């Protein structure tokens, strides 16, 4: 049997990868993809805890987290499309009408 901490380490690595991605990438779509990584790390945590704690609620949380992620993506991509229409860029470094 795999120890729970292996799953937690895996999820921590994926989470940190996502955080680093948000910090280093400049393309907004890439930022969103990195945030998806963070949410997936959370899902790994929830499912692993659900299994090791014998509490199925963890799997229910994954559903809600997933729905929230899907809905956020819809709004986020709508913002990106509107932004692109106005400025023809999705590079955060060029979002500089105001000080970033």
């Amino acid at each position, binding site marked *: *049997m*795999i*120890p*729970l*901490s*292996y*799953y937690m*380490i*895996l999820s*921590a*690595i*994926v989470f940190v*990868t*996502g*955080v*680093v*991605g948000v910090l*280093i*990438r*400049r*393309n907004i*779509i*890439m930022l969103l*993809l*990195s945030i*998806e*990584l963070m949410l*997936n790390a959370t*899902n*790994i945590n929830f*499912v*692993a805890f*659900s*299994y*090791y704690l*014998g*509490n*199925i*609620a963890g*799997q*229910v949380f*994954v*559903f*809600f987290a*997933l*729905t*929230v992620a*899907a*809905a956020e993506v*819809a*709004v986020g*991509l*709508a*913002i*990106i*499309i*509107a932004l692109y229409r106005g400025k023809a860029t*999705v*590079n955060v*470094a060029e979002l500089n009408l105001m000080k970033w």
Partner: protein
Amino acid sequence: MVPIFFAYFALVSIVAGLLTVSLRNPVHCGIALLALLGHVAGLFVLLHAEFVAVVQIIIYAGAILILYLFVLMLLNLKTEERYFHRRHAWYITGVGALTVELLMVLLASRFSGAKGPATVAAVEEIGNSTAIGILMFSDYLLPFEIVGVFLLGAIVGAIVLAKTPSPADLSGDER
């Protein structure tokens, strides 16, 4: 068998995650993310969460990622990004240090939380999706309702934002 599968899924997930944030071409990043999602779904199967695994594939890989790829191709951004942020290098150092710390903590932690009633055997008896369904529509009914409203807001919001502005709007001041 399980340790081998775990090692495979975990390693590929980590590599795919790294590729997702480091590849230059956003479409390649999307495909790396797809690989990650698939392998995380495999992990879910190892954890006896079959229903979540299937949902992960259908919703994440089937819907969310396709939406990303669709927008990427619509905007045709393939060669947009040439450089990464350089000025955040110190951030990365901080995050890296934190990660090492975090991993040390996790490796040292001998983890055994409170055992709940839903052991694998108990869940298998009624079926994974049944168990989730019953919980979702009884104890977690309120979050379910909130999520419904949330989705409505997201749909309308996406339409409001992405709708082509009418000529009257465009004649407004461009500041």
